[in-house]
């Protein structure tokens, strides 16, 4: 402060202390240093953010890519008529009486003859050999026999899933040391797996069932897929889109274009903004109380999930729609009104089309947000062993119990078998692909159609 008060008086006569523009005085240097420091902070902040992103993505990709591959074993199974159709009349009801447990010996003996054919030496019993296969193999075989009863008595070639431990061994997750105390697999069985792999009948391959299949129980993580819960998410998004978009757009057009400015509309506006910040779990409790306990809608149904997520998405859509309506210049409205259009014509013929790209972007981002939401789904019963049956029709798709992608991922991460953990990461990859795609579409729409004035 002192030199400021001194300099004005001294300036005209005395030579300036640092007159040259090329020579920076201490203050300028300090200010420039502060600026470059600030730039450094900014770069460091971005760097930390990027680093986190890279760590996150590499983590997800390394942990999750394994889920897209699965170990299979090729096997020719002799569908023995005396086991599968004891009466020999090919009656489907009689064939159905043989439960999946009855198919285990068939698979074991098929494996035994395969081993003899390939000339593999092993001390394992047929039963222990059969244990390297997934329990889903029996179900697969039974479904095949029931679908094709004419094939009984013939030898059919199958590609069965192997047990999750064998799969882990092929992926390097399970080693001979790590199974020292493991009861579900032995070192001898791993040796046997090595021999089968060398013979070329046991191999890793792309696993479409992970993307398309249903959830599986804790005993067969190798058979679990995210497909059914993906359908659940899809049906929920239909509900959200069909409800949130019309309601949200109608509400914002009214508030923005028609509603009088008074205390009541002010209160509504403030509350919409507040609603956008309400934690999503609150909507879950609301959904449980209103939709399930009061309205008696079915639990775990995507319809209820969609209704809950609609409540969550509405404020996002209303806020973004109002912002894009506001961005349309008043001259457009005035011109329309000036040539004799009614207020409604002005809005629907001129303002709304111009605001549409913004509305769409907001909707897509709202949907993406709803797609990744887990917390409210926990409360309306969408977590557990639920996504086990693909819905058989559109109405069933809305009403029959189903899970959703994030809820399925959460469920997998809780289960005991480490193979489920890998699938949880794989599910995250699929979910992220959806989210990135939706956000990219939103960005492209905005870039292409948005008009600026």
């Amino acid at each position, binding site marked *: 402060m002192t030199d400021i008060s001194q300099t004005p008086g001294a300036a005209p006569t005395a030579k300036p202390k640092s007159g040259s523009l090329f020579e920076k005085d201490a203050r300028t240097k300090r200010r420039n240093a502060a600026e470059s420091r600030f730039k450094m902070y900014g770069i460091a902040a971005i760097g930390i953010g990027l680093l986190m992103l890279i760590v996150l993505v590499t983590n997800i990709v390394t942990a999750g890519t394994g889920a897209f591959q699965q170990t299979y074993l090729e096997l020719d199974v002799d569908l023995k008529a005396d086991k599968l159709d004891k009466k020999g009349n090919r009656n489907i009801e009689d064939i159905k009486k043989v439960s999946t447990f009855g198919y285990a010996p068939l698979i074991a003996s098929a494996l035994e003859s395969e081993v003899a054919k390939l000339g593999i030496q092993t001390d394992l019993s047929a039963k222990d050999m059969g244990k390297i296969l997934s329990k889903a193999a029996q179900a697969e075989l039974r479904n095949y026999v029931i679908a094709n009863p004419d094939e009984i008595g013939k030898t059919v070639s199958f590609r069965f899933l192997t047990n999750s431990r064998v799969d882990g061994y092929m992926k390097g997750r399970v080693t001979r040391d790590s199974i020292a105390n493991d*009861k579900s697999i032995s070192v001898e069985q791993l040796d046997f797996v090595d021999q089968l792999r060398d013979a070329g009948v046991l191999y890793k391959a792309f696993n479409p069932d992970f993307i398309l299949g249903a959830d599986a129980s804790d*005993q067969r993580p190798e058979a679990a897929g995210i497909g059914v819960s993906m359908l659940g998410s899809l049906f929920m998004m239909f509900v959200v889109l069909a409800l949130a978009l019309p309601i949200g757009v109608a509400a914002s057009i009214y508030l923005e274009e028609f509603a009088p400015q008074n205390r009541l509309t002010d209160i509504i506006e403030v509350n919409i903004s507040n609603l956008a910040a309400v934690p999503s779990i609150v909507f879950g409790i609301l959904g449980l109380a209103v939709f399930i306990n009061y309205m008696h809608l079915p639990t775990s149904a995507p319809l209820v999930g969609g209704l809950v997520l609609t409540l969550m998405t509405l404020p996002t859509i209303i806020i973004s729609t109002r912002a894009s309506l506001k961005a349309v210049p008043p001259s457009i409205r005035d011109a329309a009104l000036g040539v004799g259009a009614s207020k409604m014509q002005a809005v629907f013929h001129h303002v709304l089309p111009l605001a549409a790209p913004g509305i769409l972007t907001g909707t897509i981002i709202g949907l993406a947000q709803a797609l990744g939401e887990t917390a409210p789904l926990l409360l309306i019963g969408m977590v557990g062993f639920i996504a086990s049956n693909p819905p058989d029709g559109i109405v069933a798709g809305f009403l029959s119990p189903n899970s959703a992608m994030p809820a399925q991922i959460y469920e997998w991460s809780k289960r005991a078998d480490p193979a489920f953990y890998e699938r949880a990461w794989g599910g995250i990859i699929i979910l992220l692909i959806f989210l990135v795609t939706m956000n990219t579409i939103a960005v492209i729409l905005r870039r292409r159609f948005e008009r600026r004035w």
Partner: protein
Amino acid sequence: MSFVKLSASALAIAAVSATAAAARDQVQVAGSSTVLPYASIVAEAFGENFDFPTPVVESGGSSAGLKRFCEGVGENTIDVANASRAIREKEIKACAENGVTDIIEVQIGYDGIVFASDINGNSFEFTPEDWYKALSAQIVVDGQLVDNPNKTWADVNPAFPAQPIAAFIPGTKHGTREVFEDKVILAGCEHLGDFDAYLAAAEGDSDKAKKKAAEKACIALRTDGVSVDIDGDYTETLARIDSNKDGIGVFGLAFYENNTDKLQVATMSDVVPSTESIASGEYPVSRPLFFYVKKAHIGVIPGLKEYAEFFVADEIAGPDGPLAEYGLVSDPELVKVQEAVANETVLGGGS
């Protein structure tokens, strides 16, 4: 716009008609997350082997499941509640108030609770007394009740290594916690004779009240950060042990058996936990698992009785069945359970 209008109104109609037309064709189950793996194995096999759709099994805990079970009779309530403890009197009363009177109790087997630590760490041979001395809020030293001074396992038992005590135990919302308190902490407390000291210090009008107070004092755990409540699942306990190699966690037997590459199990009173030692009753820390069936729903919900019977069938819940393979200790009196299910024997006598 007309498409949006159309779909919106179609959906509104669907939503309204859903209430009336929700003829449910699959069994709905909810409850204990300990029973969930077993129930899901059964549900999957049931869906594969019967013409009924696969039952839906939700998790959420024993208490939450029983609460939903007791909400009433009707298609929008669940048919079966899984529980890792027996139903309480209070819950039966709440059920009756809502019209759920006939409840079939099915005991499916036993579940072992094990103590496990990091695979590369020290191995332990515990007794209930050790756990009581390590975790109780107050213990008796030289005849005086004092705040628990033990810092390392060597303080608890000179035979143990001087590893800091760090226990990850199930939180109070878990059914496992009750078993841990009853069968480990309280057992150790009584065995050591500390129970008498608490009884002497207890305040109460009657002997019964005093005993209750003493029991409560026994199972009061220290709050100085040595014992950590885990409210999540066993996966969280495993993650905690992964980051704190000195930690010792409480797990279900089935969870441990799926993670033998990361965990080593401690013996309890010199018994190694296994399905065999639990079935024989040698291993002390185990508990029965149940599910409860709403009798009023049998015949209304297709497949409900078949599901219950299939669950306790020999090929499923027997000693060689898939449930035992996963870690369930099968009930030695399974035949009786099968009979009870077949006859639809309800709780509280009669049938």
